[in-house]
């Protein structure tokens, strides 16, 4: 059994992949808690999809894919923040318009490539293809995002549940939301290497949603979501190694299984409380 567990990690690419998936998983879980609680799941999904044109342009120009994705993600975050701040259209409408337009632009640009396969790892992720230099990049971004979230925890928490009070004491709730979008853009870009554009929102939403079913304390929710993410990453990598399945999809399905278990526990607990009262 121990050999079975250890064997995959005798390969360097598996160790690098696991480290990358764990770093991204924890970052997604912590920021994802805010995404779920502030009902920003749609924005997370949109940001993940809108990096596609940036990736394709960078690929076509021979530039850094990471840089292209980041530029595209940041532009989208700024665009969503700007449009919703002006209030001319509802935020979800603005996201719907920008998200679909950017994704369509990405597909259009991809159709000019020789083969869709050139960028298939962008769509579906390739955690086993993460290089040590990518890992350093992911580590720096994860540390930066987590540090900002930790430093601004009390302000982000307050603006999440009582933005009016926050504004009265001098906090700009809309600027904090904007900052959260920027952090989300950074997180999404690292996440794409693990599970790809299409499944990124699952890492942002599913572990946090599962944790939310089991606790009503924010720090515990972040911790539980992180545990779910890291465990899902490990399960996904084992599945990929032993069953030869796509690692990104396996990680997401493991997250979904965590959510299923959490939902069952929540339902049983609710029934127990109802019966005993």
């Amino acid at each position: 059994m121990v050999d079975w567990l250890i064997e995959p990690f005798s390969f360097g690419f598996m160790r690098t992949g696991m480290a990358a998936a764990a770093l991204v998983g924890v970052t997604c879980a912590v920021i994802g808690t805010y995404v779920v609680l502030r009902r920003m799941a749609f924005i997370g999904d949109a940001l993940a999809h809108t990096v596609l044109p940036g990736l394709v342009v960078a690929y076509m120009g021979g530039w850094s894919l990471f840089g292209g994705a980041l530029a595209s993600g940041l532009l989208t975050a700024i665009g969503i923040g700007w449009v919703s701040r002006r209030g001319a259209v509802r935020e979800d409408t603005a996201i719907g318009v920008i998200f679909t337009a950017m994704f369509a632009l990405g597909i259009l640009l991809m159709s000019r490539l020789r083969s869709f396969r050139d960028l298939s790892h962008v769509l579906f992720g390739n955690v086993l293809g993460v290089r040590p230099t990518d890992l350093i990049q992911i580590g720096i971004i994860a540390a930066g995002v987590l540090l900002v979230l930790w430093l601004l925890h009390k302000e982000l928490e307050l603006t999440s549940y009582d933005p009016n009070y926050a504004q009265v004491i001098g906090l700009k709730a809309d600027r904090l939301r904007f900052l959260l979008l920027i952090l989300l853009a950074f997180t999404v870009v690292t996440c794409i290497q693990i599970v790809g554009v299409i499944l990124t929102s699952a890492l942002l939403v599913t572990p946090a949603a599962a944790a939310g079913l089991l606790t009503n304390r924010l720090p515990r929710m972040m911790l539980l979501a992180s545990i779910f993410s890291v465990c899902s990453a490990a399960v996904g990598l084992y599945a990929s190694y032993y069953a030869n399945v796509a690692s990104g999809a396996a990680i997401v399905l493991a997250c979904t299984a965590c959510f299923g278990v959490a939902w069952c526990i929540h339902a049983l607990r609710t029934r127990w409380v109802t019966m005993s009262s």
Partner: protein
Amino acid sequence: MFHIPYSGRHHVERLPGAPALQLEGLVARYPGSEVVALQGVQLILPAGVRAALVGPNGSGKSTLLKVVAGLLRPQAGSIRIYGQPVGACHHRVAYLPQRGEVDWRFPVTVERMVLAGRYVHLGWLRQPKRADREQVHMVLEQLGLAALAQRQISQLSGGQQQRALLARALVQEAELLLLDEPLSAVDAASRAIIAGVLDQLSSQGKTALVATHHLDRLAEEYDHVFALEDGLLRDLPAAQMSLELV
């Protein structure tokens, strides 16, 4: 110890002898609407009074409080809080929103929510210390919430939620409290506690402006009663108020 205030403004002293709140020719629209809610409102509220703001639904009571709290920009007129403009010193004004404006399902405890009253004093990057927590526990005790400190905020009754919001304002050590319908869906025990706290604040020289549609006991619980009607404010003696509005 370093202090980075949220608004970029440090403590500003109140002007000596200035009233707690002075409104002159205040014109404001309802939030998200072009309809004018306040049409040239005039008001002078001396320090240390408990004032009720009454009027039918949609008369602009909440709009008036939000304008004074700095949540809405007025179209015209001036607002002075202890002689200073809105936002000159954020810790001086506490705003208690209507309960519907808070996301009560958010995973935060009563203690943590009340602790947020200290944030304006801490500013960016500083974390609450033991003294802040002790102050929170003292206020929770005063408002009968000590036993509920570790509960998630959605697990409180309507009256307990109002008391938690009031506790946060007390912890903030504000001098002007703006309370928007603090008595809605509140049981008799909570109402008595809230009235007791307002009385105590008044004796400490602090000022409360309370939007309410509870017209009974206005004379006992408030020093001034203002009626908002058609965007204008009328000052009425509290004793006559219940008779006029019945």
